[in-house]
């Protein structure tokens, strides 16, 4: 009981401290527009990577269509905030993006989640391409040119808050009855079904949940960058989110967060190297994957709750000895 409140308190302090540091940087001018842009992109990438990790890492469904869900959120916000450019309009557009994504994820998920491994990856990739091509050909999405002049309603505090919320939601979801069932299905689908766990339901749940959070990431992306085009949401975008997940460790939220930050920083630093950038980037990825094939964190998580429990147990043992 006590440990639970301590854990929550420490996490709140950590999150507030992160906010405070960025805020102080903004005030003192350390964080200029360039760095702020980098931080916001890191935040959005964390949202995307953590949500994809829920699908790939925890439910074990190899999805290559995350950019599709992101596109739905981005276009929902882009279109809606152009006519209703208020904060309420933004919130409403995010919700609309989530609702559309839930519907699409259900339509895509019901037939494709029966597939496994490579087949599922190709099916989800196809679904994302359909979403992209739809945006490419509709009038309301302004075709291949995409949307511009989207009002900038999102600033870094909103991204920061949404990032924290996403991490909290995914972490809580994974550590619950539902999360346990999802992990059981990933471990052994046949055994899970024989234990009365409805595998399809739980796989679909993770898929829809991950997709909806990606839509939120897309909404923030559109509103912050103010212009989007179908080419922003192609297969390369899905792959680059997947790279973050794989690099951080499939099935580790902590890993996704760390990898998003590290890759974001590397990307920014390498911008000075011009066209050599992609080569260096690729070589670094290869080196990391050789040195640590399971990703930076493997399946490990940074958990304050566990640490406190261990410390309490140690204290108790010490007290019992003396």
């Amino acid at each position, binding site marked *: 009981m006590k440990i639970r409140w301590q854990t929550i308190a420490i996490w709140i302090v950590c999150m507030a401290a992160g906010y405070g540091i960025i805020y102080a940087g903004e005030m003192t001018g350390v964080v200029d527009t360039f760095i702020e842009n980098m931080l916001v992109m890191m935040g959005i990438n964390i949202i995307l990577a953590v949500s994809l990790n829920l699908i790939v890492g925890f439910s074990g469904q190899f999805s290559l269509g995350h950019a599709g869900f992101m596109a739905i959120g981005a276009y929902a916000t882009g279109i809606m905030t152009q006519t209703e450019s208020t904060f309420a309009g933004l919130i409403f557009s995010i919700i609309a993006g989530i609702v559309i994504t839930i519907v699409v994820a259900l339509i895509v998920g019901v037939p494709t989640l029966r597939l496994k491994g490579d087949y599922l990856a190709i099916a989800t990739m196809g679904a994302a391409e359909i979403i992209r091509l739809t945006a490419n050909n509709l009038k309301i999405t302004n075709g291949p040119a995409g949307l511009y002049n989207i009002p900038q309603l999102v600033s870094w505090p909103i991204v920061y808050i949404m990032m924290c919320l996403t991490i909290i939601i995914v972490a809580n979801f994974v550590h619950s009855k*539902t999360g*346990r*069932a999802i992990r*059981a299905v990933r471990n052994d689908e046949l055994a899970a*079904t024989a234990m009365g766990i409805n595998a399809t339901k739980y796989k679909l749940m993770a898929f829809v949940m991950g997709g909806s959070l990606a839509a939120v990431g897309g909404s923030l992306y559109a509103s912050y960058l103010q212009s989007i085009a179908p080419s922003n949401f192609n297969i390369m975008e899905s792959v680059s989110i997947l790279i973050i997940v794989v690099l951080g460790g499939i099935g580790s939220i902590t890993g996704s967060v760390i990898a998003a930050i590290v890759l974001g920083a590397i990307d920014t630093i390498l911008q000075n190297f011009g066209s050599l950038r992609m080569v260096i980037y690729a070589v670094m990825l290869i080196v990391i994957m050789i040195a640590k094939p399971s990703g930076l964190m493997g399946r490990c998580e940074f958990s304050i709750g566990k640490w406190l429990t261990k410390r309490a147990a140690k204290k108790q043992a010490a007290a019992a000895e003396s």
Partner: protein
Amino acid sequence: MAEKLLTVRNVTRQFGGLTAVNDVSMTIYDNELVALIGPNGAGKTTLFNMLSGLLPATSGTIAIRHDGRFYKVSGKGATSVAQHGISRTFQNIRLFGDMTVRENIMAALNNQFKENFWSTIFHTPGYYRTEREMNDEAQKLIDRYHLTAVADSPANKLPYGMQRRVEIVRALATNPKIIFLDEPAAGMNPEETAELTKMIRQLRDENNLAVLLIEHDMSLVMSLAERIYVLDQGEVLASGTPKEVSQNPAVVKAYLGGDINAAG
């Protein structure tokens, strides 16, 4: 007289041109300990897979008594079958490898607890209540079947015999009326087998359930089973008490081959 629990009527399963299970009928009563034996390839595991809903039967019906009425298992998915009181273990152990023993058991308790979506993602007090109740329930099973020492280790890190025990307890956690054990003693040494025999008996006596087991270890079958079904080439060759079955000439022939008189 105990009531009928599971009825199998003329069940057949074909794989292409091969008939793995042919016209099998059997009845299992409440709280009974039944063994299913037969040579390799006799169709025992295929029958198990049909009984637990993992494999549809080509023809025939399987039904289990649930809440006083007979529920047709054949044609339903494994999830639904499991929710109607049938649980099982597997020949090649299938635990949730990177989850702890406790989590394995709690995952099997899944259907007995309700959880609200919002309390899940925001960890409201309701979430902690459900978690505590599930943990308490799992702890009872852990204590009762002597898994305390390994309760919080990952399942795939455990020794083989222990994994088998965990799998049986996990099957029990779904609160079944009947449990199917597919070769529970395979690969065990005599001491482990003796312990397992005790465990299966305890399982049956304490939980008011029926047990159907496939086993090649005849000493275990003869000491445990109250009734035996013998399967050979997909058909029921004989059934009865261990004594009846072991003296049945057809059974002796199927097991030892050749002439009945030559086999003694």
